[in-house]
């Protein structure tokens, strides 16, 4: 897949994400929307920083359990190694305990584009070494996350959720192997309100 095709594919996924927000907002007719927006830190340790933002759509809301579907868009930067952007979708089960604390287990799949980070000499079509352009490689990105946090919606009327934890993911199609990664994820989720019918 050529670079422009990869970008088009990524933009298509972003469009789906945006469309989902619109649909979810239309469907929700209660004070508390099923939809939340979120943003936070996503990085492999501190030296390989990144970020993510996305939506969290509530599928089931029980006193002890939330089932939710998330879609994230993010990026991270790894000096002398690679810079990557990704879009991913995951299904999660949030187990709620007393004091509004929760444990959230998520499993998902994503798509990422990575490019070498730093100075690069590339061989062009004529076999000459050039400093123009950078190769981009596409990868599938299966993910598993374990997050811990506090849900302000539970006992107090605060439309915020704060969470942190680890995400394990695999960079598939990397030198014909699935390269494992572990990333720190910490962020905040804001529960949208909807118009009363």
């Amino acid at each position: 897949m050529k670079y422009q095709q990869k970008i088009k594919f990524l933009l298509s996924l972003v469009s789906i994400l945006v469309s989902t927000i619109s649909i979810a907002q239309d469907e929700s007719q209660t004070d508390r929307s099923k939809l939340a927006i979120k943003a936070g830190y996503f990085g492999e340790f501190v030296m390989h920083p990144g970020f993510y933002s996305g939506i969290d759509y509530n599928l089931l809301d029980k006193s002890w359990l939330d089932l939710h579907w998330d879609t994230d868009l993010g990026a991270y930067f790894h000096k002398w190694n690679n810079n990557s952007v990704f879009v991913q979708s995951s299904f999660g089960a949030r187990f709620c305990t007393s004091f509004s604390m929760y444990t959230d287990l998520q499993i998902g799949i994503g798509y990422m584009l990575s490019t070498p980070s730093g100075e690069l000499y590339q061989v062009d079509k004529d076999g000459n070494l050039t400093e123009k352009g950078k190769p981009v490689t596409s990868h599938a990105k299966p993910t598993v996350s374990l997050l811990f946090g506090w849900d302000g919606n539970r006992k107090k009327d605060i439309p915020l959720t704060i969470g942190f934890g680890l995400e394990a993911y695999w960079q598939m199609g990397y030198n014909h192997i699935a390269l494992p990664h572990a990333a720190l994820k910490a962020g905040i989720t804001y529960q949208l309100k909807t118009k009363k019918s």
Partner: protein
Amino acid sequence: MRRLSFIILIGFMVVSCKKEATFVEDHFFVANDGSSMPVYVRGNLDSDVIILFLHGGPGGNASQASFLPAFQDLENSYALAYWDQRASGLSQGNPDESTFTVEQFVEDTDYVIQALNKKFPNKKIFMFGHSWGGALGSAYLSTGNYQEKIQGFICMNSGHNLEEGLPLSVDWVESYANEQLALDPNDYWTEVSTWCATNPDMTVADNYFKYVSYLRETDAYRHENQEVNTGEIGAGDILNSRMSLAALINGQYLGQHFNILKLNLSDDMENITIPSLVLWGINDGVNVLEMGHDAYNSLGTDLAQKELVLLNNSAHEGYLEEPEHFLSSIRSFVEDYK
């Protein structure tokens, strides 16, 4: 009198401001045919010498070598270029399996040298290949006029002729197994000895992988499994991108799918005429000593400009096992021909 004192003071300052050696630490990628390969350059660039290290494998890496004490010591004298080859170490991309050929690796090597010349003009480049890297260096230098770009070749325990070298290594494993049986008869070494005695066809991949599993149980890599100083990789090195988990698990696919079992470059090495140093651990069970003599004899370099140095207490990893002898040999060679 005050003027004289001032002149003396200035003169003293000029003399004492002796230029410090420039310790360079730089990094770049070379992208070719589906692979983006990192080159990490460290060391004394004031020497005007860059030693390009060709790592072993195929599927090993050069990134880890930059942490070895002997290599770090060498960086005080010269700049070293640590290049992770395609589908190895910290290289990126997903190159097609059809690019896993000696010709492709030779082409990559030339682009790395072109990039070094672009980035660090007018430096003298020496090539230092270990094991598979020695074979790659031999393939590169015996191709066309490539050797004109290189000042000197250090060929260490190379796998330049696996066609003849692997059966000799199987014999070495058989001898080792028989020694173990003499000390303590057991089923495992009986199995190894029996298998080796069948003279298996070492151009068959399954036989090769079985042989490697036996080889790893011997002291083929490190003589008498002696303790060595492998340096330290700290958390900071991982956090700061000098090392990554990828370097440890990358290269597995390449190692399984790049077949060099019929490689025999001995005849081609006659084309190599640049100054050369053949450095060999005499107890090596991987690329046995006979292949060290083969490398030395195969090189077309004038007798006055080639040398065979034997490391008597080393097997495959002389830079770990006898670092002082390793360093003095390389320094002496580079100083003679830089």
